[in-house]
């Protein structure tokens, strides 16, 4: 399949209702960090972008939101063409310019503080990171607490960034500045807003 066909195919079959369904899943996940929201594959992006991450991008990104792609995605012309055709989102030159960042390889990703953090006056001017993960259960357990969580909740995404727990603690300390994370796994997603604290589990 040539790039032109690949970039045109694979959008939402029902743009209005699919975008709403994906948004509600993200909203519920953001409001209840650590809960896992199931999401049927509504988008079919080119291979290295997962269906879930593609659907998140389609429902949130448009020409107002510069998107940053990590090097593996950056290398794929088809991904750029697909996002460009379906969302119209410009590509951000640096992580600090991005409203959204799509990260196919979280393990090797740049430090969290390299992305836009917002300002003290406008903490909403920060990057939302969309991390592609294989699942939400097979990695090291993260015990979560904070707003949206009644007592504690737990997710265990594999292949998270290096020193993630330490980086996230620093992200917490920058509050109200900081980044938010959407974890996009096949068929499901979960969120870590900047208010969520990861409890380190001591034996």
């Amino acid at each position, binding site marked *: 399949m040539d790039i032109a066909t690949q970039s045109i195919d694979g959008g939402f079959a029902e743009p*209005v*209702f699919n975008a709403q369904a994906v948004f509600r899943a993200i909203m519920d996940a953001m409001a*209840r960090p650590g809960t896992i929201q199931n999401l049927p594959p509504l988008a079919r992006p080119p291979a290295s972008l997962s269906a879930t991450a593609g659907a998140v991008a389609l429902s949130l990104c448009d020409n107002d939101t510069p998107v940053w792609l990590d090097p593996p995605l950056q290398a794929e012309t088809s991904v750029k063409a697909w996002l460009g055709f379906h969302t119209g989102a410009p590509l951000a030159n640096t992580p600090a310019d991005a409203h959204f960042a799509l990260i196919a390889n979280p393990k090797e990703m740049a430090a969290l503080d390299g992305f836009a953090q917002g300002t003290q006056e406008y903490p909403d001017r920060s990057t939302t990171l969309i991390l592609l993960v294989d699942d939400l259960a097979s990695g090291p357990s993260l015990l979560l607490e904070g707003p949206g969580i009644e007592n504690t909740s737990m997710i265990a995404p594999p292949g998270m960034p290096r020193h993630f727990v330490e980086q996230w603690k620093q992200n917490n300390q920058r509050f109200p500045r900081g980044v938010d994370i959407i974890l996009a796994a096949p068929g499901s997603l979960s969120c870590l807003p900047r208010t969520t604290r990861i409890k380190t589990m001591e034996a």
Partner: protein
Amino acid sequence: MNAQSTDIATYNFAYLDEQTKRMIRRAILKGIAIPGYQVPFASREMPMPYGWGTGGVQVTASIIGPDDVLKVIDQGADDTTNAVSIRAFFKKVAKVAVTTETAKASIIQTRHRIPEQPLSAGQVLVFQVPIPEPLRFLEPRETETRKMHALEEYGLMHVKLYEDIARHGRIATTYAYPVKVEGRYVMDPSPTPKFDNPKMHRSPALQLFGAGREKRIYAVPPFTDVVSLDFEDHPFEVQTFDQPCALCGAENVYLDEVILDDHGGHMFVCSDTDHCEKRRADGHHGHLAPETHSASEKMEPAE
């Protein structure tokens, strides 16, 4: 876009265009991630005047889907003009199911009340907000209030509450009573009576706030600390009523005064009409309830 209609001219599902919805959705997500912080958004003109809930309507329109069940209340009542017209609006532009029963609704848009019945996880409460900035009447400049939020400088608000005490002997603020969210942002809970403030604290429901004219969206996620500002020697307390609801006999609920005649006759009734109707259907009686137990009393709100 809209597969539901074959009319030549038709609105997109839920009235707003998709780009507007995306913009509002992004603002909602930021609001949830920064509880109590007012996210600026590009509020649209809506087919109703400012002050009629254009902010709440835009938030509802951006989150609502075909499977949602919508309840709209105005000062607690399902059958007042604002509630009826907004409910009819969404019935028309989104063809969603509507209800007056708190427990059955997935989205409750509200003007100035929180239902008496405790909300459950999965429900979304959408507030219509006139003035989102709690510091606005103390400091008119947006640049300054923004700086005050940035620096967490809320001394002025405490001075205001203190002046209340100096002048009236108690904190005289009875509605739009300022709260602190998750120990960081001071937030206007919208002009709900302070009676409802404790219901916001660690509520299992997601609470979203939309201010259309002032172009701000903010949010309180579920299970989030919402603490009313007070002083150690003047602790926050809610209104109490010395008589129960005249129709259903409910106590510890928020009551409205209804004038009955021009000789000073009045009664106090539940402001939450759904709560009051439910209780009457369950056989509770207040001292002014009609004696005849007519089952046909249960009325459908006018559309």
